[in-house]
């Protein structure tokens, strides 16, 4: 038996030259003691392969047409045998790929492995990271649902701010004047042909360089990289090293296998993501949220002052990419060990803490008004007990004028504005009137939206919102003087839908 295999192998080897080409690569020496921090790159590659295979499987059922994509996704979820699992694996593996490439880049950064002579490997890695994020965004669009539709709207609204080329860019991205059939087809083309092609075309030289420059040894404090002596030092490391195959590769294989198992477990446990509501632009009760990778950006755009926004949308990505690309050329020498590079460690800490906090904020989105609170969350009963008719009327105004969408009472309602449960402890009568009429902060001015009787009732209600044993804040102005302002703002106003409080 063995001799048959042997001769078959010999036949192939004679033609392919396996022994002389692939075998030396597989068994190339690597420094000793690399350990478990070196496994994230191969895990990213493994998940990419999962993506390619599950992606091809999905593509044979999914219909990349605006008219049928949503139906075909529902078919995949509910009718196609194991369609739900393939969709789930594709989603969770995509998330895993973003996590793994981030860990890989972090490891390379912290251990200074991007330094001489591996600068080009790092730059190609940056392209791979961008391809991965591009795949994550375009994949979200192919999940042709409400979030995808409005998410595209957000994406092109950002692109549309680019100086000079903005509107043209929007047209080209959308494939037409509006989001529609050609938009989905364009993003399908990007997601299944252009970006994977670009990724593979970058991956090949990336891996070639990994083999050619060798895997960097674990950094030792006090052993800085000096291009003049590095090669000799590295050669000495390799001499004392061990072959990549079969020993060192096993760590990669074990970790990759575990990663795939975790992805599989998540897919089985949590299933596929979406599709959410149908991509019908006339259903405007949509609250689009990006997938988790882009939640920090969503949060950043809500939390920054408007005058900085365009810079964050257009300049920050360019600067970010430029920093990543230039990094090995700016700090391509010197210490590699994170113990001697506190700023590098700090950068990573600040980045991940900011990313985590912003992602959490993006998920909670306290800046978003709660669009149904005005009709769905009544003023708590305890707060309207023993109120005068006018104060009760104020509570009705508070509810009807959609104040609840932004203001919480006793923990329920929107969180865009401050919780008003104890507002009378901090604002006097005249301050309340001023805030209602003129707005300020993020609040619109209600001067033209409310009649004098409504303002009077509303403020009377708000003044009851204080702690039982604490008197409300007293203003200097009398309420009568303040209400003259109301009358001048809206002289002929009658409260149409709220009868004024009766004596």
């Amino acid at each position, binding site marked *: 038996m063995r001799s048959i295999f042997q001769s078959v192998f010999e036949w192939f080897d004679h033609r392919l030259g396996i022994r002389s080409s692939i075998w030396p690569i597989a068994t190339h020496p690597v420094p000793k003691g690399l350990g478990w921090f070196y496994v994230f790159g191969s895990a990213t590659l493994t998940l990419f392969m999962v993506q390619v295979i599950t992606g091809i499987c999905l593509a044979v059922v999914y219909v990349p047409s605006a008219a049928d994509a949503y139906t075909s996704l529902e078919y995949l979820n509910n009718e196609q045998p194991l369609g739900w699992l393939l969709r789930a694996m594709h989603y969770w593996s995509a998330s895993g790929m973003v996590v793994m490439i981030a860990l890989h880049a972090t490891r390379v950064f912290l251990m200074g492995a991007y330094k001489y002579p591996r600068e080009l490997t790092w730059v190609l890695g940056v392209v791979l990271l961008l391809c991965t994020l591009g795949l994550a965004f375009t994949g979200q669009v192919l999940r042709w649902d409400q979030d995808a539709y409005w998410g595209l*709207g957000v994406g092109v609204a*950002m692109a549309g701010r680019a100086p000079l080329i903005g509107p043209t860019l929007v047209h*080209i991205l*959308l494939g037409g004047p509006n989001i529609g*059939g050609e938009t989905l087809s364009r993003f399908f083309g990007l997601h299944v042909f252009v970006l994977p092609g670009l990724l593979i075309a970058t991956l090949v030289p990336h891996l070639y360089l990994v083999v050619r420059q060798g895997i960097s040894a674990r950094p030792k404090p006090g052993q800085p990289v000096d291009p003049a002596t590095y090669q000799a030092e590295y050669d000495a490391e390799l001499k004392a090293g061990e072959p990549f195959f079969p020993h060192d590769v096993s760590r990669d294989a074990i970790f990759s296998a575990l990663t795939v198992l975790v992805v599989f477990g998540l897919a089985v446990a949590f299933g596929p993501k979406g599709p959410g509501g149908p991509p*019908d632009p006339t259903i405007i009760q949509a609250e689009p949220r990006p997938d988790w990778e882009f939640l920090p950006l969503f949060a950043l755009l809500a939390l920054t002052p408007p005058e900085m926004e365009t810079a964050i949308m257009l300049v920050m990505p360019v600067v970010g990419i430029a920093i990543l690309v230039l990094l090995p050329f700016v700090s391509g020498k010197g210490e590699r060990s994170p113990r001697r590079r506190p700023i590098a460690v700090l950068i990573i800490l600040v980045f991940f803490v900011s990313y985590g906090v912003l992602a959490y904020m993006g998920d909670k989105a306290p800046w978003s*008004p709660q669009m149904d609170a005005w009709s769905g969350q009544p003023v708590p009963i305890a707060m309207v007990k023993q109120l005068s008719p006018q104060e009760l009327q104020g509570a009705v105004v508070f509810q009807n004028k959609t104040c609840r969408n932004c203001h919480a009472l006793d923990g329920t309602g929107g969180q865009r504005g401050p919780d008003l449960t104890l507002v009378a402890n901090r604002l006097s009568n005249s301050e309340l009137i001023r805030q209602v009429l003129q707005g300020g902060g993020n609040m619109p001015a209600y001067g033209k939206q409310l009649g004098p009787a409504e303002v009077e009732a509303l403020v009377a209600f708000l003044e009851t919102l204080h702690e039982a044993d604490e008197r409300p804040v007293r203003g200097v102005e009398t309420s009568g003087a303040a209400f003259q302002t109301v009358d001048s703002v809206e002289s002929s106003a009658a409260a149409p839908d709220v009868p004024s409080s009766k004596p």
Partner: protein
Amino acid sequence: MNEPAKTPDSADPHAARANPAQPCPGRPHRRNVLGWMSVGLGALATAAAGAPILGYLLSPILKTPKNEWAELGPVENFPEGETRLVDFIDPLHRPWDGDSQRLAAYVRRDAEGSFTVFSVNCTHLGCPVSWFPQSGLFLCPCHGGVYYEDGGRASGPPPRGLYTIESRVSEGKLAIRAGRLPTLQAPG
């Protein structure tokens, strides 16, 4: 093709001198010509194949759509002093647009009877704003932008008021010039 042969080899002494290892003085010249031809023809072929590809990909900005007016129905459907959400079919839609060919806009008919039509897209980042007639405000669910009933910016991150859409009344029917996604630099 005759041109290289016509040129006397001696007329190009540089070619021979530049590469003294060449056994035959005519060879380098011919190679030179072949080299330049491969570059020139290659460029021509790339341009010939590339131009239509670029034109095809950029076609969305090259073609001008013809009919952009969408009818929203008789003017009686819009009571004076009210703002209403209307659905219409995108006049520029593709046959395979599916649900995405359905668009929405807010029609406001003021007390004097004139119409203002607003795009549903928030001017901040394009999310769909909701109209609350009780408070006379448009609210955006994404980052909390607020607009007054006349479309003016009230609060939050939007850099301007709501986008307005050109409208006209002909034969008692309201029509709008729609189908383009408004953005900050191309609001119309």
